[in-house]
């Protein structure tokens, strides 16, 4: 029933078939005759809101004894001519097109929240280990060019060969020595193995037998950098709590500790150095005499 006037006509015809006058119908429905006329003529302008008209038409159809389907069709027709878009009263979602917007916003919010939480966690983790912050403060001490390291390794090897006894300085240097030895084509395999064995055996017993030039003991995780008189960086890296750092070099030494309080004790040439008060989590610089 989409054609204009059809629904009103259906009602008017049904009324006339029952030989009822407009006045009679208006009295039964308790409506004014003008409203009933307007309904039959489908004059929306002289009728109140659609919510009322829907009810009037339904009551009118019931009075005339129209079937359920016919009533529904007539009501739907009046709804369509009076309010093209369905309103809240018909139960359809009112803000359906808007739903896309908030969903996007929610996704953005979620991403932002995750990013903030990630940032906070990152900062929190790094605030627990201030060594990291001192790393940032001392970029020069941290980066030692590999060539210089290699040079220092060969130097110390020469020194050891001259002295007749060797001191292991660092794991890195040790491995460097081993790899260099293995790479020598002139040496026999047995000699290689022997040398490697010696090198690996040297690592522990030698430290205990001869008093090292510099022994640092750590109570907590700490970034540390040690340079000797010649300006050579003896060590630059992180030591864990309970570890010892044993170095060989020329006094006086200059130290930088990322976490000053993490240093438990310091021995230079076998002598214990009395350490001043240091604050936890603070960089501590020290130069030996």
């Amino acid at each position, binding site marked *: 029933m989409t054609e204009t006037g059809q629904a009103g006509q259906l009602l008017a015809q049904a009324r006339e078939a029952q030989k009822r006058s407009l006045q009679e119908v208006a009295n039964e*429905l*308790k*409506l*004014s005759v003008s409203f009933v006329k307007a309904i039959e003529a489908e004059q929306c302008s002289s009728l*109140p*809101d*659609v*919510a*009322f008209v*829907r*009810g*009037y038409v*339904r*009551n009118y159809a019931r009075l005339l004894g129209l079937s359920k389907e016919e009533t529904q069709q007539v009501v739907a027709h009046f709804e369509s001519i009076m309010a093209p878009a369905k*309103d*809240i*009263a*018909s*139960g*359809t*979602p*009112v*803000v*359906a097109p*808007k*739903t896309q917007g908030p969903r996007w916003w*929610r996704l953005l*919010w979620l991403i932002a*929240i995750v990013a903030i939480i990630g940032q906070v966690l990152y900062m929190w983790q790094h605030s627990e280990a201030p060594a990291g912050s001192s790393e940032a403060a001392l970029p020069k001490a941290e980066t030692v060019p590999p060539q210089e390291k290699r040079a220092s390794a060969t130097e110390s090897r020469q020194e050891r060969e001259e002295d007749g006894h060797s001191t292991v300085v660092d794991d890195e240097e040790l491995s460097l020595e081993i790899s260099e030895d293995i790479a020598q084509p002139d040496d026999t395999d047995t000699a290689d193995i022997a040398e490697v064995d010696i090198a690996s055996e040297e690592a522990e017993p030698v430290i205990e037998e001869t008093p090292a030039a510099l022994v640092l003991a750590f109570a907590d995780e700490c970034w540390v950098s040690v340079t000797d008189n010649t300006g050579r960086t003896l060590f630059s890296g992180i030591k864990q709590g309970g570890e010892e750092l044993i170095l060989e070099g020329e006094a006086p030494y200059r130290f930088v500790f990322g976490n000053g309080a993490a240093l438990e004790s310091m021995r230079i040439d076998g002598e214990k150095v009395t350490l001043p008060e240091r604050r936890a989590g603070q960089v501590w610089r020290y130069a030996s005499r």
Partner: protein
Amino acid sequence: MSLLKRIRGMFSTDLSIDLGTANTIIYVRGRGIVLDEPSVVAIRNHGAQKSVAAVGINAKRMLGRTPGNITAIRPMKDGVIADFEVTEKMLHNFIRRVHEKSFFPPAPRVLVCVPCKSTQVERRAIQDSAYGAGAREVYLIEEPMAAAIGAGLPVDEAHGSMVVDIGGGTTEIAIISLNGIVYAESVRVGGDRFDEAIVGFVRKEYGSLIGESTAERIKQEIGTAYLSDEILEIDVRGRNLAEGVPRSFTLNSEEILEALKDPLATIVNAVKSALEASPPELASDIAERGLVLTGGGALLRDLDRLISEETGLPVIVADEPLTCVARGGGRALELIDTQGMEGLTLS
């Protein structure tokens, strides 16, 4: 408002809740009616401890059929909270159900409808229980206002609109103009009182006892408010009081009309006194356009005809009268957002 609630609020939807005596209906913005369940909670007792056994339709099935350790409760009575804790639990369950897919616990903005003659204490109880159920913000709106908006009445115009909302516990009658209530009356008669009247009638006339659920079924199937040519019948089984055994008997719609006479008269009288109290300009608007019935009670057969005959005014039943209040509340939330119409709600 805590920050956490705000964040959770971003993942929650605005709700309009018709916290009725008989049914709780939830309307979600953009999604329509998402929940329509009886306001019933089944509580299981473990000694001193209590836990919720079922909520809504599952709990309603248990009404009158529970073993000793389970009690099925209707926490709302006469449109207001009768059991605060159970109402809170029920609301919490319903709000959670509406947000089933969300990851965070929901913290929605909630608009709850309250009877217009409810006291400050009763309103506060409803507000607190919504907060307790996890709401971020709670607005209250008078039921007839929400019903009128839901029925599509032109509440913002300078025209009087009269709405009669017949709920489970109360009947709210209001005359509304320019987004405000000009006159409001609330009588504590509703669908429940109809059921009680049927139970009382059957006991008196047939000497048999029937339960509330049976009475409700009788009302829905053959209940009528106005004498018509069509007479309907229903077979009912109840416990005979004299013999003590279940007996079957047949009721017809005329008998039910007789049973409902008193509660219906109360409603009609309240409508008449509202019309008496209305200002003449608004009364003429109502006489021209008529009054609108909403709420579950409006579904009682020929109730509109009864009121129309008694008052001499056109009476129309709103579309989907059961959900009018919830939908109207949803629309009110939108109006608050888009047009800043805070005046629609109660402070």
